[in-house]
């Protein structure tokens, strides 16, 4: 083992040590510097190619973007940030939507826990796909309804559209 190889190896070790530190810092960036949001001019063009791809081949795009797209979702003007209970036992309550997805069901592991006789344990989930909230029914017994129609496939939820789960109605608002 020559001196030179050892020198290169030991400098590479130091470099990799710092790479490790910075990989963690990079993964943590939203935590350290806050959400990258409210920059509409930057956000729109970045989101546009994804939207085009999604409309061309919805199934393929969905399969590709969901596991791959780890970037924090860009908050554009049309993305909902709140979920408001519009009717049902706790009318008027609202919650801030999380970054990527929200589980709905009777299980206490869900983000939105609805405990009534019509709700399944893991009933449905809301997911943010390409800046748009999409609801997916998780094979619930009594179904999930968007604007009165029962959904079986992941369905986009536009702002202000009533969603019904059990006895509870809610809608997404900005």
């Amino acid at each position, binding site marked *: *083992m020559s001196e030179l190889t*050892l*020198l290169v*190896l*030991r*400098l590479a*070790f*130091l470099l*990799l*040590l*710092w790479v*490790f*530190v910075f*990989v*963690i*810092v990079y*993964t*943590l960036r939203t*935590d350290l510097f806050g959400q990258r949001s409210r920059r509409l001019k930057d956000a729109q063009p970045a989101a546009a190619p994804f939207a085009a791809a999604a409309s061309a081949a919805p199934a393929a795009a969905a399969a590709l973007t969901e596991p791959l797209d*780890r970037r924090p979702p860009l908050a554009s003007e049309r993305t909902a940030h709140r*979920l408001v*209970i519009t009717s*049902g*036992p*706790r009318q008027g*309550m609202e*919650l*801030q939507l*999380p970054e*990527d997805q*929200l589980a709905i069901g009777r*299980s*206490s*592991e*869900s*983000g*939105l*826990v*609805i*405990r*009534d*006789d*019509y*709700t*399944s*344990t893991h009933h449905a989930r809301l997911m943010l796909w390409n800046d748009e909230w999409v609801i997916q029914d998780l094979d619930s*017994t009594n179904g999930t309804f968007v604007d009165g129609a029962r959904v079986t496939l992941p369905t986009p939820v536009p702002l202000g559209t009533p969603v019904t789960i*059990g*006895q*509870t109605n809610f809608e997404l608002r900005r």
Partner: protein
Amino acid sequence: MTATAERSGVPSLTTTITLKLRQPARLRNVELPLLLFAIGMIVGAMALVELGAQGSIDAGMLGLVAGLGVLGLVGHVILRVSAPEADPFLLPIALLLNGIGIAEISRLDIAADRNGWDAFGVKQIVWSGMAMVIAFAVLVAFRNHRILQRYRYIAMFTGLVLLLLPMLPGIGQTVNGARVWIRLAGFSFQPGELAKIALAVFFAGYLVTARDSLSMVGRTFLGMRFPRVRDLGPILVIWASSMVVLVFQRDLGTSLLYFGLFLVMIYVATARLSWVLLGLALFVGGALAASRLLTYVQGRFQGWLDAFSPQVYNRQGGSYQLVQGIFGMADGGLVGTGLGQGRPQVTPLAYSDFIVASLGEELGLIGLFAIIGLYLLLVSRGFRIGFNGQDDFGRLLGVGLSFVIALQVFIVVGGVTRVIPLTGLTTPVLAAGGSSLVANWIIVVLLLRLSDTVRAHPRLVLEGSGP
């Protein structure tokens, strides 16, 4: 209760595990590559040490280190099943620090020609393995951190007993002047290391209930609200016990650690600066009195303030060790001499108390800062977990446990670099020492458990009525 359970009866353990593994676990997928990166780094560090120090690679040691990495992967799988929402950074950081420590300890083994089971590096690997197994058992056993709140007084009792155990004649042992060891059936153990976890649990549980009486009442003096005399009880008890450690166990570092932990937790719980000022005044007063009365504290102060005078340097128990450590780090300079190529063995206790100086010599300032950066990330994740906590107990416990690590790193690194007087404490997960490894891995795992319960908490619960 669940729909599946109604249909197929109680789900068996294996089906629960497969169901859990099938769920998308975004955080665990972040953790896996980092963990593999860390494993590569620790095997690489070991290989570099052997290349640098003896010119050839010993496959046996590399295999042992890789085995530790496999244990880390086992921990990853356990997390996938048992705590899928736990923080993804703690395990890789702790494993990397542990591995770097092992590499440096075996480097010193090579220098001192220790082989086989006499080698501290091999012992350290075995201890790390045991510590990780114990820690993962703790992770599986504690499904919810709130259970700990119920046992806060038992935790206090355990903590104080562990703290005072080395003073029992028969099992207590004096090593290098400090009486902090016990020896049972051939094994040495430092019970004070585990005591810090027990005390953090007690402080968190106690402060949740006592917070109001500690923060709301009292009289204002000089613009600050000072507590009532009768509320001073706990702080006096903790002060007294840390002074007992200082005087009778002759361990400045441990005493500073416990008292600092209590002060920070009481400050976080009550948000009142007066507690910190009172506590600091008490501690500085006690330490000053001790430095007058106790010769070993006096020696530490002199070795710190006047390290380079030949008289102090040459004295028995003087500043020889500290100064050799500083010379080593100076020799390392910016990029270090390279792993296995320096002479850290000159410093006494280079594998435990002075591991930071040894690493500073061989990895240089750049490498040492990376290590401190890793600690910073570890502690910041801990604070973040505490900050995100839903219940007060979890918040305080998260802050307390991560502050223990932060304070310990500060005391050790500060002592070695002559910022504060040198005290004998271990660098968490880096330095040689079985009890310290067990305790710090348990801290890491408790933080993992806390972070999982924090994230799994529902945001809104709707209690519906029947039809």
